[in-house]
């Protein structure tokens, strides 16, 4: 300890003169003004970090090098050493401040790790499959166990792709969006603009909360049962569609919209509530009717939040597996018709390729396709998130100049 902790700011400044950083380094420094006396030069942190990395690598090498111990040692050494340096060279308050800042960064890094590692592992395993010729453009029709066996044993290219699953996911999610956005939007408009805290609005809020918690497989079973019931009643009354089965793309879309509606209601409700009341009143005061005010003032003001909320809801349901598996089934060929025949979605495709490889004894090609499909799914979800940000900024009310 070369310096006692300074209890008050005045005491710190009364000391005058920059705290020396040891004989070697202080020569290299430009004379520092009295205002900068309590700071340490920024190269010091880089130097400390470099030292910690070297030391951490050395220590973890002693235990047989691995990334986890390397990370732990580096972080611990860096945090400790920067605390001690600040404590001895500046003062205790700054040291504690720095300690907590470093801990917060560390927590952030730790939180980031699963994400990075998922992306890394999926990308590293998935890219070869993604680059296989025709992976995005072909479906699984004609890909038999023999074809995969040839790929694995004779080095023939891995054939087959995800075109049918992509189309299925796209159509099912689009249909689910088309169903749930109007329902969700109108519900939240009712809740925010028309309901005056009555029984109905409280009941709706309660049931929307309950819906948020519905397990996705239950939504799938519900949609399947509802569609089966509807078809039996419909064919009983009209005598049409007597042979229609309930396993359809549209059934999966209904299942997904059960999951989407509460998310859309919740986000839209939030967005509508933050639209200032002043704008509604300004519109009323111009002699504009309520529904026009909602349509032309409230919704445009909230549109960026609503659109990005909807996009996030899509991103949330596009990865659902179970409800689509039980409602739309699984096929190897491309099906463009939501109302006829089975359909494959991307997550179901991944599941099936892992669980039931096309060739049970030679599963490598199936796994390669599954990983590549997983990579595509992650990319779609990331793309949707970026897209949500994009519309949030594009549609945001213009705020320039103020």
């Amino acid at each position, binding site marked *: 300890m070369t310096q006692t902790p300074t209890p008050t700011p005045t005491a710190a400044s009364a000391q005058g003169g920059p705290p020396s950083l040891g004989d070697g380094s202080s020569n290299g420094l430009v004379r520092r003004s009295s205002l900068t006396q309590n700071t340490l030069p920024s190269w010091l942190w880089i130097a400390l970090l470099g030292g910690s990395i070297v030391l951490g690598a050395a220590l973890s090498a002693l235990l047989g090098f691995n990334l986890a111990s390397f990370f732990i040692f580096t972080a611990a050494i860096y945090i400790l050493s920067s605390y001690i340096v600040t404590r001895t060279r500046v003062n205790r308050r700054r040291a504690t401040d720095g300690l907590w800042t470093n801990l917060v960064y560390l927590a952030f890094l730790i939180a980031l790790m699963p994400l990075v590692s998922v992306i890394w592992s999926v990308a590293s395993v998935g890219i070869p499959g993604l680059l296989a010729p025709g992976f995005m453009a072909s479906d699984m029709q004609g890909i038999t166990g023999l074809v995969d066996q040839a790929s694995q044993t004779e080095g023939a290219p891995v054939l087959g792709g995800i075109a049918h699953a992509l189309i299925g996911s796209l159509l099912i999610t689009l249909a689910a969006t088309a169903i749930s956005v109007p329902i969700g939007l109108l519900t939240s408009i009712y809740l925010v603009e028309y309901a*005056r805290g009555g029984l109905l609005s409280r009941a709706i809020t309660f049931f929307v909360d309950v819906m948020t918690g519905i397990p996705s497989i239950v939504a799938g079973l519900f949609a399947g049962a509802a569609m089966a019931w509807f078809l039996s009643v419909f064919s009983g009354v009209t005598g049409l569609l007597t042979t229609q089965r309930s396993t359809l793309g549209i059934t999966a879309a209904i299942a997904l919209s059960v999951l989407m509606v509460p998310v859309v209601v919740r986000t839209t409700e939030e967005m509508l509530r933050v639209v200032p009341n002043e704008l509604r009143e300004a*519109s009323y005061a111009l002699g504009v009717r309520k529904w026009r005010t909602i349509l032309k003032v409230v919704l445009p003001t909230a549109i960026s939040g609503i659109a990005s909320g909807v996009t996030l809801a899509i991103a949330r349901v596009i990865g659902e597996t179970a409800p689509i598996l039980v409602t739309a089934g699984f096929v190897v060929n491309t099906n463009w018709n939501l109302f006829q025949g089975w359909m494959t979605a991307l997550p179901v495709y991944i599941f099936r390729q892992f669980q039931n490889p096309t060739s049970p004894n030679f599963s490598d090609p199936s796994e390669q396709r599954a990983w590549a499909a997983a990579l595509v799914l992650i990319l779609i979800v990331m793309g949707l998130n970026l897209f949500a940000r994009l519309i949030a900024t594009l549609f945001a009310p213009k705020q320039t100049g*103020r």
Partner: protein
Amino acid sequence: MSKRVDAVDLNVYYGDFLAVEGINISIDARAVTAFIGPSGCGKTTFLRSLNRMHEVLPGARVKGQLLLDGEDIYDPGVDPVTVRTQVGMVFQRPNPFPTMTIRENVLAGYKLNGARLSKSQSEEIVETSLRSANLWNEVKDRLDRPGSGLSGGQQQRLCIARTIAVKPDVILMDEPCSALDPISTLAIEDLIGELQQDYTVIIVTHNMQQAARVSQKTAFFNIAGTGKPGKLIEYNDTTAIFNTPQEKSTEDYVSGRFG
């Protein structure tokens, strides 16, 4: 183009709370009338009942008669939207529509109602409204920029332009200058003086000099205590209110000896 306003035994409620009681007042057409009074005495509440904006709040209601050129706006058959097209309102805080350009803000009263305007018509409405709001010269080169990009005073004048664009008979202003600097305030006071030639203007203000400068008549409101309803204490020519008030509380208030 401009109508007189008469309140007859008007009571204004928030739910069960009687905020303003027993107002009887005759407001002249083509004149500026100022409402003054201490905070919480119900000036805003009464003003908002003049164009049926009061009932927008849940539980808010009004009893009594409010005559616009002799026609009761609280008659059961009256559509509040019709009333609001005839009685425009400028709010305390400037509130241009953030999603609209300056031009669209001025035309908001037409556009939001789905009216179709020819290009020349809308050009003309935009120019005359902005000219009467003393804003034309400042914004004529940037009509297609967002309205929220203007200064606070310009935004307030934009809101006034938006209000006069729909040609109401009466214009209500609730402390229109309270968020503005002295120069913008002066601009708006000048504007009020001009508006008076065509409109019935009713303005709430906390600024006694402002009331004295812009208005011909002044109404003083007061409240007996918290939780009590606000009442109209005295209503007279502005010069009389400020120089020879009849009531003791008016005299205390206008001479700053209030409270």
